[in-house]
């Protein structure tokens, strides 16, 4: 039996009422975001590409594949990835110690983590060089062991690890703080060993944050200039980083050459960051977090 509803004229459900969103401000937000991004990021980057476009393809290729330049890519990207990886491991440990344990001076150490952010990079470079040079505090002990840090690729790595440290710690820390100790207790009561709990329970949960920290540390390391040039010694084919190659070109008033190398750097960095993002999306999907 039909219910005795009052026979209201059916309102046409189409056209008339414009669709509305429950959360306001979408247009404003999108417009603002695009405008701001263009102004701050896209336009300067576009200028790099435009300037580079003054070169012919052959000239461009000559500039960006010069042996010295190629060597610098290898050093810059290789050491940046390595430094980010080292930071991922030790940053996670540091974050873990800061979150899980209380010890005297914890607040102080917590504050120290941010110092590489605050320190002018040149100061960091000079102090690292002073430490690791042949006659430096640490260098004098390492030198007899056959380990040369300053003016070698290893020196570049040390500087990049130093400046990238805060990223991993600060991205992983809040995730670890949220991590319920009950999860670890549950894993242990199910018979998991300590490392199994870490590998199968803790790591999957912090992994996305760890990856973000890794990406940030990597991005920072690729672009780093100030702290590296002092300790690297800038020996052609050995310890020249790509940003230095760009500066060198600029100093020779070879603006197009500089932007050409910058273009390559940009593209490579962008590709690597895209891969990291893809990896993040993939893990999120695999672990049911993408809803």
């Amino acid at each position, binding site marked *: 039996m039909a219910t005795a509803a009052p026979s209201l004229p059916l309102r046409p459900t189409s056209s008339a009422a414009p669709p509305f969103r429950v959360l306001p401000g979408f247009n404003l937000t999108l417009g603002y975001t695009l405008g701001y991004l263009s102004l701050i990021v896209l336009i300067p980057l576009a200028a790099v590409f435009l300037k580079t476009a003054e070169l012919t393809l052959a000239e461009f290729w000559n500039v960006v594949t010069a042996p010295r330049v190629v060597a610098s890519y290898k050093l810059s990207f290789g050491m940046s990835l390595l430094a980010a990886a080292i930071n991922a491991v030790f940053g996670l440990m540091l974050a873990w110690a800061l979150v899980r344990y209380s010890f005297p001076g914890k607040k102080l150490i917590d504050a120290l983590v941010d110092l590489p952010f605050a320190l002018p990079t040149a100061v960091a470079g000079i102090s690292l060089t002073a430490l690791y040079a042949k006659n430096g505090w640490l260098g004098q002990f390492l030198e007899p062991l056959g380990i040369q840090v300053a003016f070698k690729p290893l020196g570049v790595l040390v500087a990049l690890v130093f400046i990238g440290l805060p990223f991993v710690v600060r991205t992983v820390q809040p995730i670890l703080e949220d991590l*319920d100790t*009950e*999860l670890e*207790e*549950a*894993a*242990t*009561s*199910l*018979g*998991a*060993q300590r490392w*199994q709990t870490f590998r*199968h*329970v803790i790591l*999957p*949960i912090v992994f996305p944050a760890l990856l973000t920290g890794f990406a940030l540390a990597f991005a920072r390391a690729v672009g780093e200039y100030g702290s590296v040039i002092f300790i690297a010694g800038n020996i052609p084919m050995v310890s020249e980083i790509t940003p230095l190659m760009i500066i060198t070109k600029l100093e020779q008033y070879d603006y197009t050459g500089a932007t050409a190398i910058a273009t390559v750097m940009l593209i490579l960095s962008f590709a690597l960051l895209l891969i990291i993002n893809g990896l993040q999306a993939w893990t999120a999907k695999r*672990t*049911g*977090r993408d*809803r």
Partner: protein
Amino acid sequence: MSIQVRNIHKQFGAFTALDDISLDFPTGELVALLGPSGCGKTTLLRIIAGLEQADAGQVLLDGEDASGTHVRDRQVGFVFQHYALFRHMTVFDNVAFGMRMKPRGQRPSEKQIAEKVHELLNLVQLDWLADRFPSQLSGGQRQRIALARALAVEPRVLLLDEPFGALDAKVRKELRRWLRKLHEDLHITSIFVTHDQEEALEVADRVVLMNQGHVEQIGTPEEVYRHPATPFVYGFLGSVNFFHGRVEGEGLRVGGDHLHHGVQGLGQGAEVVAFARPHELDIMVDGDAGDGVAARINRILAFGVTARVELDGINGATGQHFEVELTRERVAQLDLHEGQSVRLLPSRLSLFEQPHAARAAGAAR
């Protein structure tokens, strides 16, 4: 497997969580640890599991001292109040976790694991959720998965920490019945912690009542409900009326009133608190002032099977509230109405001497 705890003591700073607790949990029984929050019941459970260590005392599993045994070797299944499911794993992987973590030599093959997981998921009636993630499940489903996960390692004991605490009333009731049935099928020695007296009485074979780090009473649900051993238990299990009074002759003096009662074992003039359940009180309309406690009817709630009468004490018992449960016929017969002055006459009274009573009054309030 049987569980015994011997003289367990646990201190958190200045706070004594457990004070010399000794208990026996016989094989195959489902025992409830019942008490108000902060009474130490969860701490005791965690000590039995090995998640926490006692300052003194022993935990015996099957007669063997397990105090030095690590959690992972105790073979206890632990179910947490907030499920503690691994949210990055599917339901299947959650249940399989314990089996996959076994040392290589003892680890079953993936095929055996899959069989076992599906068997357990069938047991908790959630086989169809195997590929979901915990965030896609309801609270009740999550807790059943957590239970299946704990059972997967074939624990010798099952420990449940407020397993239904985070669920809504309807689901809680359903799961209660389900847990009872599961226990009857599996007969694993189980201990569950709860602050819900109804839950404890309904599900458990035996109930251990705890308060402020002490055990107040141990018994079957029937025993503890019908014969509370201490004022605390009286106050904690079900609603109760209490009268402060003094032993006088054959009875009890409450303010200006007198209650006839066969007082035994208490000296004349002893300060006591007397307890009576709502159904153990009767209302007299025309009684003379010789017997019963004077009270005024405040409200009559007659919508259930039985009628509930709420009264305010007068004549010495002022400021006190009473609750009486009567049949509706009785209410009609007495022709009660609100504002009426009546006398309360207990059919049964339990007396406790004052030093005890002071604590009970606090709990009953």
